[in-house]
């Protein structure tokens, strides 16, 4: 017997898809917006002993209300320790703790190796569009073991070459990070409004891991400037009633991030 159809938004599915990638005992670095929601959801659903840290210095936040920025006073709620930026980033660069961190990032552009641009479109000194810049994203992407990336799945965002490489993914392939002197891992997944993309263990190239109900692998390719392997793709497991309930009622009842 088929379960009754659950209604949910792409944003809800994105948050839950990311939450499922967080393991119990992980240290979760998150930024503003949906990444915060994914971290909260993981802690409530599948990874109760995961530890949420913010670049602003809040370590092991309990997050009673959803913060609207990483400096929102809500990130301090019942934290283990409040420090500053220097403390937070040292946790990521330190090899012992950094190897346990999963970073959740977003960007304006991404390439096949998961390199991210959140700085500018066009020439750097005369940009046609200027974005916020790295913030802590480059630091996280440089140092920690795993990153998960949130993106809107659009052709102008999945590009052959990023206009400005703000945050390192796998750089130019399997040996890119080692050659550049970067330790840790690199991007593990890209979670979009249409799909979950993985990175091949050998080539470090992006591939389609799972597509959302109502879309197809070929439709997804049409939203990208470059082609990826779609042979391993499967339809994603939809959110369960419990996942949705926790996300909606405990994580973002005002729908500040869910919209």
């Amino acid at each position: 017997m088929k379960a009754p159809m659950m209604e949910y938004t792409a944003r809800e599915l994105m948050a839950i898809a990311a939450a499922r990638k967080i393991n119990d005992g992980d240290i979760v670095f998150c930024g503003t917006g949906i990444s915060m929601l994914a971290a909260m959801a993981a802690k409530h659903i599948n990874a109760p002993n995961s530890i949420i840290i913010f670049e602003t210095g809040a370590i092991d936040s309990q997050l009673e209300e959803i913060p609207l920025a990483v400096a929102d006073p809500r990130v301090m709620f019942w934290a283990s320790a409040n420090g500053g930026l220097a403390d937070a980033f040292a946790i990521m660069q330190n090899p012992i703790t950094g190897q346990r961190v999963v970073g959740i990032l977003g960007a304006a552009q991404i390439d096949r190796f998961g390199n991210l641009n959140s700085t500018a479109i066009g020439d750097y000194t005369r940009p046609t569009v200027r974005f916020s810049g790295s913030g802590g994203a480059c630091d996280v992407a440089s140092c920690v073991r795993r990153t998960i990336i949130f993106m809107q799945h659009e052709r102008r965002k999945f590009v052959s070459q990023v206009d400005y490489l703000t945050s390192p993914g796998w750089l130019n392939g399997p040996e890119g990070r080692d050659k550049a002197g970067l330790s840790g891992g690199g991007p593990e997944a890209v979670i979009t409004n249409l799909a979950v993309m993985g990175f091949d263990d050998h080539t470090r190239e992006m591939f389609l891991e799972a597509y959302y109900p109502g879309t197809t692998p070929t439709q997804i390719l049409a939203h990208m400037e470059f082609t990826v392997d779609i042979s391993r793709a499967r339809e994603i497991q939809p959110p369960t009633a419990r996942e949705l309930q926790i996300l909606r009622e405990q994580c973002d009842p005002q729908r500040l991030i869910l919209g």
Partner: protein
Amino acid sequence: MNTAPDKRMGLAEAVARFVFDGAHISIGGFTINRNPMAAVYEIIRQRIKNLHLYAHSNGQGVDELVGAGCVAKVEIAYGGSGRFAPTCICFRQAVENQKIAVEDYSNYQMTLRFLAGAMGVPFLPTRSSLGTDIIEKWGFPASMRRADPQIPDHKLLVMDNPFGAWGQTTKVVLVPAIQTDITILHAQKADANGTARIEGLTFADVEQAKSARHVIVTCEDLVEPNALRACPDRNQIPGLIVDAVVHVPFGAYPTACYRYYDYDPVYLKDYSQSARDDLQHQAYLERWIYGLQDHPALLEQVGAARLEMIKADPGTGYAKGLDRR
């Protein structure tokens, strides 16, 4: 720094004394939290120009300074104000229109640069940004750097680890120290001597203060001399580095001040809206800054009801259940 016992001053006087056209400056806080907004508005009101601004992710304060035309150059990691402006509106326009020169770093790099200045070393190492355009692309060209002794000749440098494989590291990025003429912070509590206590996250405020030639501290509460010294563990700012102490209740408004008040979502949204349009932004500047004498006048115009709405809950330090839509 200053070792005098009493450094109390009015805000207009403190800004006039320590912030000058072309000054190298940084402000405390992060995005929508504990920016020294009263001081920012006073700088705008005094129409100080050509500032060289150093920011990690200082958010609202940076954007207002840029929008009011006070800034010529900025070294920055992030120009955003959380959900209220994922990219700060004025910052974005100023960069796109080439009204300001901008050079990008990461948040950790900016923190390390302030820390290097505080420690009195010319640089600090990190692995962050290896392989990226943060290393490759300079906002300030070499010619401009050589001409200005207050800018280092290199944006940053990549170096092989001189200790071989020690620390499982092959290469490091060296980031140059920052030393500002003036750094302005807002703290919850300070005394006349300048000893100050920040409650909640300190962001990079402490490193910023210690890397500055002069420091202005604005505070919610100006307390008796020994009130803070009874628990020196909790004071991050020793008095000796501070030049001016200014008592400014709601001095971080419209950004948050932990355990005192939340950010004001109404003000921040209205600002973000008017910043998108030149005429509206001019009207904003007139109505909220130039047309007002000082910060108390701004608070009066905001009204007691709004200030009450954002009052911090004693248990959480923020306004629980505040409507933030």
